[in-house]
């Protein structure tokens, strides 16, 4: 839960933000660092792995020390990327991958006590970003304390927005001094996020709880799209509420974090949807997977492979399950169709079609995105059963 607990506000956010505003600039990163470390240990013990989860703080310390050796063009950056991927694979995918290889019933390598360290999916992406950008020479080294405060900045540690060091460092060195405005807007953002979470996202749980095999089998067919749509709305309100609280919390420090959602459901094509849904992840995927694979400056079949691979990895990142891979591939397919359509349309010189065309494009985008949530919120057999019931009966 974290952001919707009193402990978050009373023990961490308010004291850290006030202290951050009062200490000298040189000490500000250390305020972020100390409160971030305390936050990680506290919520790990309470919610993510217990004492073993709290020990994972060592990952941050190791990363901060190791990253000091990163230089432009250095092979150590690749070692840093590899070890970060290893952390992610061991904690998040161990049982999934060994299960795929050895079979779920004969998996002698099954780790019964497996746990997810708090925010591992997000902080590992920041580690990889830093290693890659140091290799490219596009990110400054910064000081030890500054980098530690970047990776341990608790408002964004657990579920983003995924930050970039080159954005964060100037904000950390020269945070906004407009106390009143920052607190007014930051508080509004936090309150709006909490209200969105409690009143909208949690309310929709009453509908989404039905997305299981038994209820799907016994439900009338017309109810099924309502349940799926409820999930689509729930995940939007839930995650955008989380991002609101994270961004509002950072604002209390005088640090501006980039937006993560910008009305994704009003977008009229899938590419646009992704530019406004979980924007920090989208930018990360483009910069660190899609473009290194060759991006869209390749032959068309290769571009399509790049899109499918990028989105498949995005799906896998969301969860260790075949359903998440299917969800990623679904979006890769949609993006590929969109990519082909844009080129065909340009070649055929089809003009913009006005409001009716936009409404049609929006309808297609909205339906296809929401159909995709079936793979996201149910395991693969249940999702296939849901879609079969939805379309065939």
């Amino acid at each position, binding site marked *: *839960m*974290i*952001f*919707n607990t009193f402990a978050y506000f009373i023990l961490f956010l308010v004291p850290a933000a006030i202290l951050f505003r009062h200490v000298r600039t040189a000490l500000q990163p250390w305020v972020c660092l100390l409160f971030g470390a305390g936050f990680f240990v506290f919520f790990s013990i309470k919610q993510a792995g217990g004492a073993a989860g709290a020990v994972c703080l060592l990952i941050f310390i190791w990363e901060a020390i190791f990253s000091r050796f990163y230089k432009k063009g250095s092979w150590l950056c690749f070692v840093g990327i590899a070890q970060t991927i290893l952390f992610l694979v061991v904690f998040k995918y161990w049982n999934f991958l060994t299960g795929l290889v050895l079979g779920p019933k004969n998996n002698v390598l099954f780790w019964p006590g497996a746990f*997810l360290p708090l925010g591992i999916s*997000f902080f590992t992406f920041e580690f990889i970003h830093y290693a890659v950008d140091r290799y490219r020479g596009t990110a400054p080294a910064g000081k030890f304390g500054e980098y530690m405060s970047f990776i341990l900045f608790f408002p964004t540690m657990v*579920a*983003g927005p995924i930050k970039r060091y080159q954005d964060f460092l100037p904000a950390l060195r020269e945070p906004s001094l407009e106390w009143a*405005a920052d607190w007014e*807007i*930051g*508080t*509004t*953002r*936090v*309150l*709006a996020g*909490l*209200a*969105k*979470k*409690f*009143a909208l*996202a*949690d*309310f929709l*749980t009453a509908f989404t709880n039905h997305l299981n095999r038994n209820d799907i089998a016994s439900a009338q067919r017309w109810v099924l799209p309502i349940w799926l749509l409820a999930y689509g709305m*729930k*995940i939007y309100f*839930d*995650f955008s509420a*989380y991002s*609101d609280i994270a*961004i*509002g919390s950072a604002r209390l420090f005088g640090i501006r974090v980039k*937006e993560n959602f910008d*009305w994704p459901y*009003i*977008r*009229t*094509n899938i*590419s646009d949807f992704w*530019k406004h849904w979980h924007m920090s992840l989208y930018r990360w995927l*483009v910069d660190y997977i*899609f473009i290194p694979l060759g*991006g*869209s400056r390749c032959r068309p079949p290769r571009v399509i492979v790049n*899109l499918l691979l*990028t989105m498949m990895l995005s799906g896998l990142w*969301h*969860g260790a399950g075949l359903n998440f891979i299917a969800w990623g591939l679904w979006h890769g397919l949609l*993006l590929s169709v969109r*990519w082909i359509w*844009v080129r065909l349309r340009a070649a055929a010189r089809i003009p*913009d079609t*006005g*409001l009716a065309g*936009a409404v049609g*494009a*929006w309808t297609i985008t909205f339906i296809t995105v929401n159909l995709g949530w079936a793979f996201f919120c149910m395991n693969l057999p249940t999702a296939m059963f849901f879609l079969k019931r939805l379309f065939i009966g």
Partner: protein
Amino acid sequence: MNPTETKSEFERLDAIPQPRPAQKLLKAGWWLIDSLDYLGGSRDTPPTGFPFRGNIWRGLWWGLLIGIILLFCGQTSKFIYIDF
């Protein structure tokens, strides 16, 4: 995934001549979005013509949000992305 394609179809509509009701509808829609962004704290300044400005309205808005939070907070479900 072409980063140059930044405008949505709806935004591109501004460049195309539209019937007057459609123009009005689009304008009202964008104004509503800007207003909600301001109320949600993701925009620092209200859009032109936004009626509820000033500290009293801000206080009332915070009161309403706190009321909603208190009313619904018993459900306490987890944030979905915490588990990722």
